[in-house]
C-alpha cells in the first residue's frame, strides 16, 4: 500500500482521456488499494479517479456512505471502465476537487443516472443512482474524460437552462 501523489491543475495529464482497463490482475488490485489509501489520506474526498494520480486508465472509487447528512448511496464502489448510460434531471451543487486545491464552485449535474461498470475482477456491475452519489460519479467519470469541475462551472446569475452540458457517452466536452 502506498499514498500516491495527487496531480494538481494545471498538470496536463488531468486533461487526457483515460484508456479502458483490459487486464484485471494483481497489479490492478494493488493499484486500487493504493488509490483508496490516497483518497482517504487527503481532505474528506468522496471519490477519486486514477487520472488524478497520473494513471490514465478508467478506474474510479466513490464512497458516499459517510457524508455529514446521510444520502442514498451504494457504499464504497470500485468502478472500472464506468459508463454513464442515462441521465435524468439536473441540479446545481457545490464541488471541489483534490486536484484543484483551495477552490469550490457550483456545477450542474444530472440528478439521476444509470451506470454500467466492471468491478476489480472484471465482473459486470450496473447501478441506478441519484443526488449526491450520482454527482460524485459524474465528477469522477469526467476526470477519466479529461474534464475538471472547473470546466463546468456555473457563474453567478447563470440561468440554469442556458447550458446543455451532457452528451450521451460522456466521452468528450459538450
Amino acid at each position, binding site marked *: 500500500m502506498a499514498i500516491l501523489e495527487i496531480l494538481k491543475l494545471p498538470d496536463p495529464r488531468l486533461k487526457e482521456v483515460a484508456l479502458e482497463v483490459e487486464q484485471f490482475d494483481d497489479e490492478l488490485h494493488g493499484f486500487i488499494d493504493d488509490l483508496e489509501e490516497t483518497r482517504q489520506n487527503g481532505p474528506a474526498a468522496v*471519490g477519486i479517479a486514477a487520472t488524478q494520480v497520473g494513471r490514465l486508465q478508467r478506474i474510479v472509487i466513490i464512497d458516499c456512505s459517510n457524508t455529514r447528512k446521510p444520502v442514498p448511496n451504494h457504499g464504497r464502489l470500485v468502478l472500472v471502465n464506468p459508463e454513464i448510460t442515462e441521465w435524468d434531471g439536473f441540479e446545481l451543487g*457545490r464541488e471541489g476537487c483534490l486536484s484543484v486545491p483551495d477552490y469550490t464552485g457550483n456545477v450542474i449535474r444530472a440528478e439521476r443516472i444509470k451506470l454500467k461498470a466492471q468491478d476489480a475482477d472484471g465482473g459486470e456491475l450496473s447501478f441506478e443512482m441519484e443526488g449526491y452519489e450520482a454527482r460524485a460519479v459524474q465528477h469522477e467519470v469526467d476526470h477519466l474524460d479529461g474534464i475538471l469541475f472547473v470546466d463546468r462551472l456555473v457563474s453567478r446569475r447563470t440561468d440554469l437552462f442556458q447550458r446543455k452540458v451532457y452528451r450521451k457517452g460522456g466521452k468528450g466536452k459538450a
Partner: protein
Amino acid sequence: MDWQMLTLVGEDQPGIVAQLTDALYQGGFNLGETSMIRLGGNFTIMMMVGGAGTAETLLPLIEPVARQLNLQMHLDPIHGALHQHRVPNFQVRVNGADQAGIVARVTGALAGCGFNILDLESDVVGSAQQPVYIMTIQGYSDATLEVLEAALDPLKAQDIDVHVTPVETLIG
C-alpha cells in the same frame, strides 16, 4: 505581498475590464481575487491589486483610464491575502413580493445565529408594477439547520418566503 482594493463604478460599456486590466498589467501589477458585475446598468468592479508598485504608482496608471471610461474610482490598502477561502455550509434563498427591509430582517436573523455571509446576491425582477425580490446567500454557520430555520421562521409570518438548505460540498 501587500494588496490594495481598487473599486471602480460607472455606466456599463464594452471594454472596461480590458482597458483597466491592461493598464495594470503594463504597470507591473497583479490581480488577486476580484468581483465584477453589472448592477442597474452600471459596471461595478472590486479587485485585489498587488505587485511591485505602490498606491503612488498605481493611481497615475488607472486615473486616465477611469476618466476616459467615466468611472468613479477608490483605492484602499487592505490587510488580506489569497487562499483565505471559506467553504459555505448553508444556502439561504429568499423570494417574494418586494417589501422594505427584507435584507435587513433576513440577515439580522442569520447574524443572530453567528451566520457568516460569504456571498450574497440579490435582484429585483418582475415588473415595475409587481416587483419581485430574489436573494441567495451562501454562508457558514456552526449552528444547526434547525436553529437557523427557527430563527428564520418568524419572517414567514411577515410574508417573506425564506428557505435555508445545507450545502454539502462534494470533494472528488
